[in-house]
């Protein structure tokens, strides 16, 4: 589920508010999105893929992460290079090669 909106990275572009299929976000008073309906999150990673500044983090769990979870530690995730890792794999973002161009899996076992 979505766990982090890193406000210092956010440019208030509203992309995540638009693309989220289940309307998890509302625009906060300062323009930074807030997680208004956490339980709506279907852990589909779309918001993270569309965030142009890698300000969002979707934890791999389909239920909320506990308060002391590493999945709620924005600084730790940024240091570990995890923020933006999905977008990097997709090759979305200026100057990156699209991942789809090289997405060739192995032949399936007979």
């Amino acid at each position, binding site marked *: 589920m979505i766990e982090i909106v890193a406000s210092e990275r956010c440019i208030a572009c509203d992309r995540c508010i638009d693309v989220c299929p289940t309307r998890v976000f509302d625009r906060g008073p300062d323009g930074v999105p807030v997680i208004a309906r956490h339980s709506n999150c279907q852990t589909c990673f779309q918001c993270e893929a569309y965030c142009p500044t890698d300000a969002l983090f979707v934890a791999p769990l389909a239920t909320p992460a506990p308060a002391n979870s590493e999945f709620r530690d924005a600084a730790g995730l940024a240091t570990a290079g995890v923020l933006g890792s999905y977008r990097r794999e997709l090759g979305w973002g200026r100057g990156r090669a699209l991942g789809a*161009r090289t*997405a060739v899996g192995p032949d399936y076992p007979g």
Partner: protein
Amino acid sequence: MTNTEAIETLRTDVLVIGGGPAGTWAAIKAAQAGVDVVLADKGYTGASGATASVGTGIWYVEDVPELREAAMASREALGGHLAERDWMARVLDETHARMRELGEVQRYPFPVDTNGQPIRDDLQGPEYMRRQRTRVQRLGVRILDHTPALELLVDDDGVVSGAVALDRASGRTVRIEAGAVVLAAGGCAFQSKTLGCDVDTGDGALMAVEAGAVLSGMEFSSAYAIAPMGTSLTKTAYYSWASFYRADQTVLEGAANYGGRSVIAKTLLSEPVFARLDRATKAERVAMRRGQPNFFLVFDRLGIDPFTDFFEITLLAEGTVRGTGGVRIADSSCGTDVPGLYAAGDTATRELICGGFTGGGSHNAAWAASSGSWAGQGAARFAIGRGRPGAELRPVGGAGLRPTGTVDVGHRDVVAEVQRQVLPYELNYLRHGDRLTPALKSLHDTWSEVRAGLGAAGEDVFRAREAAAMVAHGRWMYHAALARTESRGMHKRADFPAQDPEQRRRLLTGGLDDLWSRPESAATVLVGGHAA
């Protein structure tokens, strides 16, 4: 729905409901036919549904007779011989053309082989769907995001003439009058948390049946996907390289991704099951990471190396998303049994190309692109021939919208009750009449409560409607499952374990308060003049 003051009315030629692959292809082909198109999605066209969040194989076969023959023959027995060669052949043709178009016009970056030829049998969901959205926009289609359709509109002759939808952000009702409607609203996965499918609640089937359509193959709705415990990662292809284990790390005999998934289900009833992708070579492991990066995204974040670590798994219900049942297709342009109404993608039955079984996304993906394109063209032709509908249109939605009594049922309770009857393996996967009968009875009771007392206001209107659609879907599934007294395709009955040659025909199901199922008669499906 009582809030008539908040109604905004749009008028168009073709309304497409659902913005996944089927809906976007429908919008593209209708717009290319020269008509005005509105595309409404419950979430966001480009990010919603089963495809946008995944990578999917697609049933794309090079135009070589031997390869096509092998592709068609390979799945006929698995599907219980309910598919049709005519439909398979035209889906292969159409998929070939659409994937070429996707590369050349949408500029989808297909990988290339060592000869520089594009490899078009696999799609990365986010990349595919964002390009579909851009194409739809460039063709001048009006896109309505976060606007779930609630019910269809029909004219005095029963011709489908648009829909009423809800703008979730404003809470306003939008009335969209149209010359024809394409339902491409996905299947139903009962909000089991299968990847990207919380929006797939069977709304299309409910709206279609309320307008007079019938369903086909609803018994083929027992698909379950493997996922690491606690996640939404229902991408199963790579489990072809998995071994399955008990908690003590002994091998779970008979368990397999294909042909042994029911062993996993049976075991999960009493103990945890673990997997490890330990049958992949080093080279295959590298290729897998390249092929499906979002599969590894979840493992990486969990700190699990799926090739060397044992990880606990579960099975999540995929209902009619990976099942093959849906709205019956009555003609070659994906028209339904109701004039003005077309069905595409997972909303429609996919039995025509894969019978009662689909192992993965590839047939569904090919069907979505093909049926969407045909439905868009068919709807455009119908709308041109008919003209815009008159002013006297009637909304046909019932359950969840217009309770017959006092509102005393909440949508969350209804969803929880449906899930209790359709998610458990011992009910829906490992089917037996002794268990299906009481489950169906319970769903009937829930339906009666929904009819009488489920309603909502504001944004929750569509939540109530989703809950009603899921109850209806579960009832159609189990009614059909009880009517097919044999095992065929994915539908396995423990009390009827054998395939019965007498039941080698598709099964139609319908009705709202009183359900019915009956065999499809031999001459009812026509393709290019050939009776099925």
